[in-house]
């Protein structure tokens, strides 16, 4: 042999192979034409016989390259490399198949990563405090309106429980308290900072120390102690430019001077609003702490339940033991001060982690199950697609085996191809996951507890990629085993094999499973949709259309002291209302201390004056709002009897109260509403009896899915308040039209104030059901995706089944079978898969529906309408998925079908 020959260098290998194949093809065409075929027919026939030329060329190139690189081959690397290139070529050759697999993978993995990331952050990761399992919230419990409710504690009760209970190594009270941080220079603007008044022991309870300066000492909380403050790391950076000299300096908060003693480490923001019950009014993050100094007056108000308490269990004390002990202490207090407690008063200890996530725990597990179902469906679908394609390639694979390629070699090639697809899918999926976690967190701002703790964890991504690798291998195996078989046949006669029955059964079973699982998801989504529709239609009790709301908080100098500051507050809001009323764009003006459905409610007790309750009877509770005289008009809350507040109800007038219908009916079940007007009640927050001047319609104060509870209204001219949410209705009907006037008039009254949380009143209502809407939308999206994937799977099985039976169908048509009977054959094949899937799915949906019960509003978890609708939808969509291949089956030309083999 010559040492080298021209035209044999590696770069030309592709070209040579190409030319040789083209020559072969042309010769074949000539031969067929010599037999009398037209050129067109001959070319088509030659192409059919030739099969997959790309595969052959690939094979040849591998062989050729292998000759030149035998040493690489020995290491097994040459093939891997070419497998990857071949895999990539397979992607390009069949882009629809590839895109389907990649997208299916991407969707499944994105859902899994996003779902697990959120669940991991919210439910699984420990709270950022040492030994979080020993931390427990301590709440009061009492019967309110016939059911047990959990309430904050009163200051005197906290003091007594702390002094008597032995189960805790430390216990602390805290309460949300916004501050205005004044600028240190005239250019520096005032900031509203979310703060909290806390017992000095809080930092011992949580076992977190300041990273700079010191924590509070018990002396800081004594009445008359020099005011001190601690701040969060973020505020320290933002406002104090990370200055180390700040410790010991004086800052001005709401008009009073405080000495800054400590800066808390990054990430410390206790209490975080979403982790605690809504009515406590905690901000998403707390950035500033002052010592909780109890005044003598506060120490007397045993009935005013307005502080949250957290404790750290002493070593080796079980939560149950502590629970019993605290309840025993409360029992003693009830004996001592029976008047100050509602019926069945007690204490409730909740682990802080459970407290943080109680509201969403179930929803998140549901989310995770939905995500897992979609992932399983996606994987089943990919398995199906892979097997289907392997069948289409039986010819190619058999040739490779016949040529002596080992099973391992064929398997590795398929696995590599799948790995290429899976890797692309996983990469896309990760990107979607990161984006959707952000989207999800944005959808429920401040609504998701521990949202701060949700970060895309590299371990989660790693798990996803490992799953991908395993999937690639498994599907490689599945498709390789599907592709094994009738090797000798193929070599001998070049026939294309038809699949074995066994594999067909496997693929059909997968489709049945997919249909069943998507039905489970769909029924869940259906129930949530129905529940949401009902919720949307609940009358809220107020009319928000055309009104704007915004909060105005007056700066507080020093302590909360209505006696000293009240007249000023009253005068301010009176004047602000007057100015707004005279503006031409504004129709009605009113204000309320806490907007309904905005998550803030204050409770107090009430007691009938006539007839007075027998001694020792506990007082019932009710929520209360402070309002201006315009409130009922502005919020369109109807007066059912009596009158609303007006100018008569001033400081000199008779102390007046408006009660809600629910309160009136509970207190005087048999008295007509009109006769209640003029009666008197004692209200926990007021020292004198209040005369009822009117009965107002019920308003959903807490949430739309709970019936409105008893409620009462006090007027600010008799009970001044420093924070109001303005409700201002536009003449034009467009809420936004009144904002300029609201801003202008506020500035005119006090240049240092700003409107906060300005938004149309309608949004308040919508935001209160944002979580339900979000859950519904998310579940529906997953259910839709599941249905789509299941239908792709169904379509795939039916379509490949028809391709493999082309010959059979051709024969039947040739023998005179009608189109109708061909259609019937195809649909019969699909019908049992669909009906079996629907049956299993309906049973599964029925079995799992109880899980949803707690998430539904006024909807039966086994609502037959929903089930029937879902089954109908699934069936119709399944018919559509079958219709396309079925139609194609009727178009099979018997001549071509018979010649195909």
């Amino acid at each position, binding site marked *: *042999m010559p040492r080298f020959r021209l035209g044999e260098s590696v770069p030309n290998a592709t070209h040579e192979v190409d030319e040789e194949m083209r020559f072969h093809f042309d010769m074949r065409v000539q031969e067929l034409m010599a037999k009398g075929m037209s050129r067109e027919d001959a070319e088509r026939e030659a192409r059919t016989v030739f099969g997959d030329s790309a595969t052959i060329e690939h*094979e040849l190139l591998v062989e050729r390259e292998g000759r030149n690189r035998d040493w690489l081959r020995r290491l097994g690397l040459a093939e891997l490399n070419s497998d990857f290139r071949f895999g990539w070529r397979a992607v390009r050759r069949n882009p629809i198949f590839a895109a389907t697999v990649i997208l299916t993978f991407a969707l499944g993995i994105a859902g899994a990563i996003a779902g697990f990331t959120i669940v991991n952050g919210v439910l699984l990761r420990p709270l950022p405090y040492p030994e979080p399992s020993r931390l427990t919230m301590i709440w009061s419990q009492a019967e309110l309106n016939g059911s047990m409710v959990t309430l904050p504690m009163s200051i005197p009760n906290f003091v007594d429980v702390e002094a008597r209970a032995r189960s805790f190594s430390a216990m602390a009270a805290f309460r949300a308290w916004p501050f205005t941080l004044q600028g240190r220079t005239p250019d520096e603007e005032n900031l509203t900072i979310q703060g909290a008044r806390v017992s000095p022991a809080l930092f011992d309870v949580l076992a977190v120390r300041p990273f700079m300066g010191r924590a509070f000492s018990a002396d800081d909380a004594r009445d008359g102690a020099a005011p001190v403050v601690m701040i969060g790391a973020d505020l320290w950076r933002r406002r104090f430019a990370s200055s180390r000299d700040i410790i010991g300096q004086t800052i001005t908060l709401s008009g009073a001077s405080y000495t800054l003693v400590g800066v808390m480490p990054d990430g410390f923001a206790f209490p975080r609003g979403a982790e605690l019950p809504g009515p406590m009014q905690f901000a998403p993050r707390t950035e500033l702490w002052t010592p909780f100094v109890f005044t003598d007056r506060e120490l007397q108000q045993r009935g005013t339940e307005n502080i949250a308490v957290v404790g750290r269990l002493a070593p080796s004390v079980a939560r149950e033991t502590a629970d019993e002990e605290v309840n025993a202490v409360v029992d003693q207090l009830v004996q001592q001060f029976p008047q100050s407690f509602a019926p069945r008063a007690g204490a409730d200890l909740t682990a802080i982690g459970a407290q943080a996530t109680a509201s969403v725990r179930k929803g998140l597990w549901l989310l995770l199950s939905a995500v897992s179902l979609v992932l399983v469906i996606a994987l089943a679908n990919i398995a199906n697609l892979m097997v289907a394609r392997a069948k289409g390639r039986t010819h190619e694979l058999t040739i490779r085996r016949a040529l002596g390629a080992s099973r391992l070699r064929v398997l590795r090639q398929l696995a590599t191809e799948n790995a290429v697809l899976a890797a692309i899918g996983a990469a896309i999926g990760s990107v979607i996951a990161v984006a959707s976690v952000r989207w999800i967190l944005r959808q429920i701002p401040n609504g998701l507890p521990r949202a701060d703790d949700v970060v895309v964890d590299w371990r989660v991504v790693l798990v996803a990629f490992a799953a991908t690798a395993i999937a690639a291998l498994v599907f490689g195996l599945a498709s390789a085993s599907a592709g094994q078989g009738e090797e000798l046949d193929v*070599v001998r006669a070049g026939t294309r094999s038809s699949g074995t029955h066994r594999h067909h059964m496997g693929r059909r079973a997968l489709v049945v499973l997919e249909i069943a699982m998507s039905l489970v998801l769909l029924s869940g989504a259906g129930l949530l949709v129905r529940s949401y529709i009902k919720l949307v239609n609940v009358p809220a009790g107020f009319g928000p259309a055309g009104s704007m709301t915004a909060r105005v908080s007056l700066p507080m100098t020093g302590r909360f002291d209505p006696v000293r500051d009240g007249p000023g507050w009253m005068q301010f809001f009176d004047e602000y209302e007057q100015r707004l009323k005279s503006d031409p764009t504004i129709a009605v003006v009113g204000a309320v201390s806490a907007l309904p459905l905005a998550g803030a409610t204050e409770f107090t007790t009430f007691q009938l004056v006539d007839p007075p309750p027998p001694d020792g009877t506990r007082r019932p509770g009710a929520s209360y709002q402070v309002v201006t005289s315009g409130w009922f008009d502005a919020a369109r809350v109807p007066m059912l009897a009596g009158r609303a507040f007006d100018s008569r109800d001033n400081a000199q007038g008779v102390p007046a109260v408006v009660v809600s219908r629910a309160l009136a009916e509970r207190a005087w079940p048999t008295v007509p509403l009109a006769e209640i007007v003029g009666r008197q009640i004692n209200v926990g927050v007021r020292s004198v009896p209040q005369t009822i001047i009117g009965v107002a319609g019920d308003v959903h104060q807490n949430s739309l899915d709970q019936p409105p509870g008893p409620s009462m209204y006090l007027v600010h001219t008799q009970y001044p308040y420093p924070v109001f949410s303005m409700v201002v209705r536009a003449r034009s009907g467009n809420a936004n039209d009144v904002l300029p006037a609201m801003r202008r008039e506020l500035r005119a009254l006090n240049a240092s104030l700003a409107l906060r949380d300005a938004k149309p009143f309608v949004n308040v209502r919508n935001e209160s059901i944002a979580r339900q809407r979000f859950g519904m939308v998310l579940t529906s999206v997953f259910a839709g995706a599941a249905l789509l994937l299941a239908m792709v799977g169904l379509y795939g099985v039916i379509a490949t089944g028809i391709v493999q039976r082309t010959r059979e169908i051709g024969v039947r048509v040739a023998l005179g079978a009608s189109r109708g009977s061909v259609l019937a054959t195809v649909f019969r094949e699909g019908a049992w898969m669909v009906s079996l899937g629907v049956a299993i799915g309906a049973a599964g949906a029925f079995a799992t529906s109880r899980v949803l019960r707690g998430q539904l509003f006024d909807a039966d978890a086994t609502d037959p309408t929903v089930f029937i609708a879902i089954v109908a939808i699934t069936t119709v969509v399944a018919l559509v998925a079958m219709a396309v291949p079925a139609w194609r089956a009727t178009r099979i030309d018997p001549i071509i079908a018979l010649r195909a083999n």
Partner: protein
Amino acid sequence: MANDLVTGTLELLILKAVAWGPRHGYGIGKWIRDTTDHFVDVPEGVLYPALYRLERKGLLSESWGETDTGRRAKFYALTREGRAHLKAEIVRWSDFAGAVRTAITATQRS
């Protein structure tokens, strides 16, 4: 074993096809088809890889030439090793086929 046999058979037929002179790939396939009376129809996807593999083993050599109609084509020719291999394989195959025939036409079980 069965695979080796089939693979070996194909290689044997290819080597035999070029025993009397170089042929191009198409010609080899057609020769096998015609001489086996269409009983063995080797698909392209089997034929060409086999040709390349035989070339790599050094049993065939390849060169570009022209067909009688003047088209450029790649021709395969038997190398010295190829001819020796062909001889040995023919013997092996005949022995094997004879043995199988004897076995399957035996009239009585022993």
